[in-house]
């Protein structure tokens, strides 16, 4: 339909590469210009362009079709292929939406939290991170996934370390993350190496077809284990989450908001892609990783991380642990191994991205005005910063999963999936773990609204440039809690792209 516009059609053909190349090219330009404000503007424009591109891509593939783009005209499997289907187009849209909303917020926040000389470098690192994440999602080449993953990871370490202006512990956090992230990436690349050894190809589609006859092969099984654990580290599967709380707590507020909403989501996507596209779904099921690793650790995360969150004294850290718990829900959806389960995971990707980004931004606004996110120091701010505090409450409601919020939609689909399998004990666990969220959110509400302020200093409401992005996402989290047309359709289409083609239950029983 769009392609009928003759001048546009050429542009449309190259959408997949534009998605990655725009932020990639912008990054060095920002360094060369060297002025923070222009750097921000360029980053913002690049982000908007990405948003447009990802929206156009999603509209093209939402009906289940697939776009294959050959880099430099080299045909796959030899050349690198970008491959867009409903699943990754949906994730691309999430990424660029979050980036576009976070950047206006970042401008104000970065001016306060980062030394003037480093601000252009901040935007460069940010753009590279963004590029890396987009690239991981869009590429159809297994080794290319690793390359982009490293681009995003390396720039993330830099971004986290920039929090050292506010708190020196950011340096240790970034270093720890670097060590752990590198181990994860190494595992991942070992896995890909093993696959390459067995099949002689790196293209995902090609890999899939060549792996099919090799399902009983020990090397392939080892490759699978390495890839799942390596990615598991990136997405903070429960016992492998140890890098996350510190990184999120000590990174600059804008970085935390962006990473919390995107980085782990991209990792989830990669996990899904490898489990269901590279390896056949039946293979993943037969390997036992779903039943014995993904599902149980998902459930453990739902509870253990939530309980840890209850006892935290730093609000950023509370939210970080809550992220680990929310990732548990996503893993749970994967562990169901059903269409509804994957829909739940995909919709939770979106919903949690919106909610957590809003919450971290709101906490960042508190930090902006008070200089701390230590919970006892936030006493009585409900009256002094009414809009920011209200945003935290509204976001908190979504985390708990109150009806009319997006959090409810995620849990509803997850519950439906559980009941479909007649796992009503699982339904009870889901509801019970949501109740723990009530506790840690309530503690914050109590401090903000019911405690008297510690000292008499007057705290102003956060600036409008911060409130607008926060409230955009909060309103989105309510809007998509009521109108689920776009999100549910996209999530279902994405789930279909992964296991819709095969009949999962029949496949499993063989």
């Amino acid at each position, binding site marked *: 339909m769009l392609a009928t516009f003759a001048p546009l059609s050429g542009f449309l053909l190259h959408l997949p590469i534009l998605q990655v190349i725009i932020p990639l090219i912008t990054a060095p330009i920002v360094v060369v210009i060297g002025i923070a404000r222009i750097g921000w503007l360029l980053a913002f424009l690049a982000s908007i362009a990405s948003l447009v591109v990802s929206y156009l891509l999603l509209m093209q593939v939402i009906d289940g079709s697939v776009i294959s783009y050959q880099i430099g005209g080299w045909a796959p499997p030899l050349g690198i292929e970008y491959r867009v289907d409903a699943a990754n187009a949906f994730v691309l849209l999430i990424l660029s939406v979050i980036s576009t909303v976070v950047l206006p917020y970042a401008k104000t926040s970065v001016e306060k939290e980062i030394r003037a000389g480093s601000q252009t470098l901040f935007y460069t690192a940010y753009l590279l991170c963004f590029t890396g994440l987009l690239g991981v999602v869009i590429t159809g080449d297994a080794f290319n996934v690793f390359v982009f993953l490293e681009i995003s990871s390396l720039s993330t370490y830099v971004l986290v370390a920039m929090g050292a202006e506010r708190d020196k512990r950011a340096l240790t956090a970034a270093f720890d993350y670097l060590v752990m992230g590198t181990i994860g990436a190494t595992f991942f690349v070992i896995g890909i190496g093993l696959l390459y050894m067995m099949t002689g190809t790196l293209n995902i589609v090609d890999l899939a077809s060549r792996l099919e006859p090799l399902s009983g092969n020990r090397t392939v099984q*080892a490759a*699978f*284990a390495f890839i799942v654990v390596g990615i598991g580290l990136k997405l903070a*599967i429960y016992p492998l989450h*140890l890098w996350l709380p510190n990184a999120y707590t000590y990174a600059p507020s804008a970085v935390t908001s962006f990473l919390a909403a995107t980085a782990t989501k991209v990792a989830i996507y990669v996990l899904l892609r490898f489990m269901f596209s590279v390896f056949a779904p039946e293979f993943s099921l037969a390997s036992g990783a779903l*039943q014995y690793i993904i599902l149980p650790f998902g459930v453990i995360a739902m509870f253990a991380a939530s*309980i840890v969150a209850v*006892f935290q004294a730093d609000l950023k850290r509370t939210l970080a642990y809550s992220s680990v718990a929310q990732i548990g829900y996503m893993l749970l959806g994967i562990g169901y191994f059903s269409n509804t389960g994957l829909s739940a995971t995909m919709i939770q990707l979106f919903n949690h991205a919106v909610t957590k980004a809003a919450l971290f931004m709101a906490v960042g606004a508190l930090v902006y005005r008070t200089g701390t996110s230590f919970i006892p120091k936030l006493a009585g701010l409900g009256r002094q910063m009414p809009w920011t505090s209200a945003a935290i409450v509204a976001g908190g409601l979504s985390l708990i999963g109150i009806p009319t919020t997006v959090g409810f939609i995620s849990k509803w689909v997850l*519950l439906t999936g559980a009941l479909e399998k007649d796992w009503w004990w699982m339904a*009870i666990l889901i509801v019970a773990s949501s109740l723990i969220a009530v506790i840690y959110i309530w503690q914050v509400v109590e401090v903000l609204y019911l405690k008297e302020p510690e000292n008499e200093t007057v705290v102003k409401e956060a600036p409008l440039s911060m409130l607008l992005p926060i409230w955009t996402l909060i309103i989105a989290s309510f809007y998509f809690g009521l109108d689920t047309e776009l999100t549910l359709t996209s999530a279902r289409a994405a789930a279909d792209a992964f296991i819709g083609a095969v009949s999962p239950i029949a496949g499993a029983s063989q």
Partner: protein
Amino acid sequence: MAENFPVAFLFFAGAALLFAIPKGNSRAIFLLAVPVAAGLYIWSLPEGDLWTARVFNLDLELMRVDRLSRIFALIFALAAFLGNLYAWHVRDRVQQVATLLYSGSAIGAVFAGDLITLFIYWEGTAIASVFLIWARRTEGAYHTGMRYLIIQVGSGVLLLAGAALYWRETGSLAFEAMTLGSLGTWLIFLAFGIKSAFPLLHNWLQDSYPAATVTGTVILSTFTTKLAIYALARGFAGTEILIYIGAVMTVFPIFYAVIENDLRRVLVYSLNNQLGFMVVGIGIGSELALNGAVAHAFVHILYKGLLLMSMGAVLYRTGTAKGSELGGLYKTMPLTMIFCVIGAASISSFPLFSGFVAKSMVLSDTAKEGYYIIWAALLFASAGVFHHSGIKIPFFAFFAHDSGKRPKEAPWNMLLAMGIGAFLSIAIGVYPAPLYALLPYEVDYSPYSISKVVTTLQLLLFAALAFTVLVRTGIYPPELRSINLDSDWSYRMLFPRVIGAVSRAIGKIWTAMTGFALRRVNGIIAGLYRTHGPEGPLARVWPTGSMVLWIAILLAATLLISFIDLA
């Protein structure tokens, strides 16, 4: 269709508008206008499913109007009016908004035609009402409110879980009569049971209601429990287990009511006991018994509100509602005293008062259906009600020994609210036909037959006689006369030792059980803190080594399970 919008929205719009209206009398008038408008509107509604909303492929029935839902909605609107009149002098916006949202949610729940709508309003009543407790703004009230909220929201969660399972089983979400049997219906039953304060699920009631503000208690006493009664009548009419639950409910709060010193708390125990009568009526499930339960709920809201209002007025003027610190107030609060006595006569179901025309329906049907033991229990409970609500409340507050307090008469708005309540209590007692006309089923029942009147009078007179005899004989030691009612201690000794011993034994067992449970819960929380707290092993983040160890373990596990081929 469009003009029959849900009644609850009227209250919610009112709550929103409230912010635009300046403090003072204009706002108080507005608060009265909302329930009046709602009442007239409910009166004019035709029967049927009047408003359907479509959400997620589900049809939500927001306005299911029939005779059962209409009578409850009407009495709720009336109670909201009286409550707001009683609270005319209150200038606290939190309480005003909470009252509107609370009564609106309760009415919305009554009109809910499906379980999801019911759930939403069910939680609405929980969340709105807790602010009436918090409005007292003390540390104790805060914790009480928190406990109350957890239990109430928990009841809603059970309801939702039950509704989901029920939906899976039957494919329908309609809120109609159900039979116990599956997990889903049991969960729903339990959710209703918590809110209607079944024995052992009742503690929130006595814990929270007396902790609310003077006006808050009056409002609270109306909605939550009667909403649950409505839900039981709708969903579980004729469920036999309810008869036994209800009978236990009527009897056991009496012991507590006897030894309790806080008169508002005494009234809350008697509230629990009254709910028992309604539950028995629902359990029997015949048309007469259901009518009786509904009529009882109707008049109960009036006279219990009246009694709580009078005690609230005493508390408002003297600052205490403790039996041992009050007495002799009739000298300066004569009108309040008269209204209180009318309420007391109604709750004791004296002929010509409203309690009589309602309670006798349940009682006589219990006998008719052959539940003689239950009937005896209810009779015993009636005598108990007469004793603690009929005699004890007015006696200790207004007569007894003179406490020396000389408070002013209650303010005009409280007197007016009590006056209307008292008038209605007598009017219904004398001429019950209009109430009977509202009941869910056709009524062919006359309360004033010779035998019923005589039975009731005999019961009441013998109860009074027993009281007097106990006082006059050796059971009432003479030396207590001098320190009579001066302290908790004497007060507990005043009444039969038998009852005291029984209740102490029950109390001891109960304390032991709750103490044990409490210690266990505390132990669990301490354990969780040890493991999950900031210093706990599960929250440690710094050692990179432990992370690497975990990676190794997980890799080994993944490899192992793929190799040994578990699936």
